[in-house]
């Protein structure tokens, strides 16, 4: 799929042509360009199965991955999580909320000038480890941070 996209980009030539095609509605940009949604991974209920779906047979703990998230989240409905990877040639970052019913929350493939940094917000039903998996030069690295979730409100 990734290959196909690159080829498509080459075929259409310059970026401006592509932008024009998108804005003219000729190209359904989302479907045409996005990589296939990792159904197996997103439907996995365990970290091991998610690892498999990513093709990560082994992972190394890495201090070059920083997970920025609150130690205590006041509201599990909106838990900010940012991941920074200082590992050279970072290709992808995956975010997993280990105790969620479906733990895989997000996967980010980085290309071109994209830096090894992503930030988003995740729903968490309970206190859980948040795990980041980074793929760099074909190898997998990981880091974990615990986020305590307190139930908000006075009800």
């Amino acid at each position, binding site marked *: 799929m990734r290959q196909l996209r690159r080829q498509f980009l080459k075929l259409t030539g310059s970026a401006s042509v592509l932008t024009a095609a998108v804005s003219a509605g000729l190209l359904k940009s989302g479907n045409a360009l996005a990589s296939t949604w990792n159904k197996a991974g997103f439907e996995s209920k365990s970290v091991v199965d998610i690892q498999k779906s990513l093709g990560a047979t082994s992972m190394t703990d890495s201090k070059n991955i920083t997970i920025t998230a609150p130690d205590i989240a006041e509201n599990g409905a909106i838990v900010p999580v940012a991941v920074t990877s200082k590992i050279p040639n970072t290709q992808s970052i995956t975010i997993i909320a280990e105790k969620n019913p479906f733990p895989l929350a997000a996967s980010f493939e980085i290309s071109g000038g994209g830096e090894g940094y992503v930030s988003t917000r995740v729903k968490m039903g309970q206190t859980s480890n948040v795990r980041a998996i980074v793929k760099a030069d074909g190898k997998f690295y990981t880091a974990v941070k615990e986020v305590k979730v307190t*139930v908000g409100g006075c009800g």
Partner: protein
Amino acid sequence: MNINKTKWMIFGVAVIVAGCATYPDQATTKLMAEKMVYDAFTFAPEHKKRLDQDRSQQICSKIGDAKLTNEEAAEVVKLARASIKYPASGNLVGNWKEGDKLAHNGAGDRIRNGKVEKRKENGALCQNCHALAPGEINVGNVGPSLTGYGKQRGNSEAIAKYTYEKIYNAWVVFPCSNMPRLGATGHLTPEQITHMVAFLIDPQSPINK
């Protein structure tokens, strides 16, 4: 008389023209604000008492840094003392496990769209304002920590009675403190309060671990 009236009218106009509007006095303020209260809420007749102030609440609604006088404090304490009722069983120490649940329950009796929140019983609201078991994070600090309450005081009959009365009507000890008079206002039943007492003083309770 007529002359006087005219004088006053002229004076009144002058005040407005000169822009000398100013803060209303206490009595006027009270009159206006009390009217605002009853205009602002939609309520069934049986809920009017939630807006009406009893004598103690009136005394305890001091504005700003105004302080209670000794006489007022004494009156509040006296009213609090008179309000306290004890459980039919006579036993002031209930079940700490029930108390634990109640301490972490902040629900019950709230009104939305005319409907009173239905619960088996009202929560005791403790967690909102007090630190409870050691290491518990999701607790408030409006009131003092209750961690180790029984450990420090023991569980004698006298302590049980003091604790029961303090929860039933906190103002018997500290007039006009922030703590709701949980028994006196009917938020908790005497039986529920015995569970709270147990939760606070029982050596087995997580509070005292």
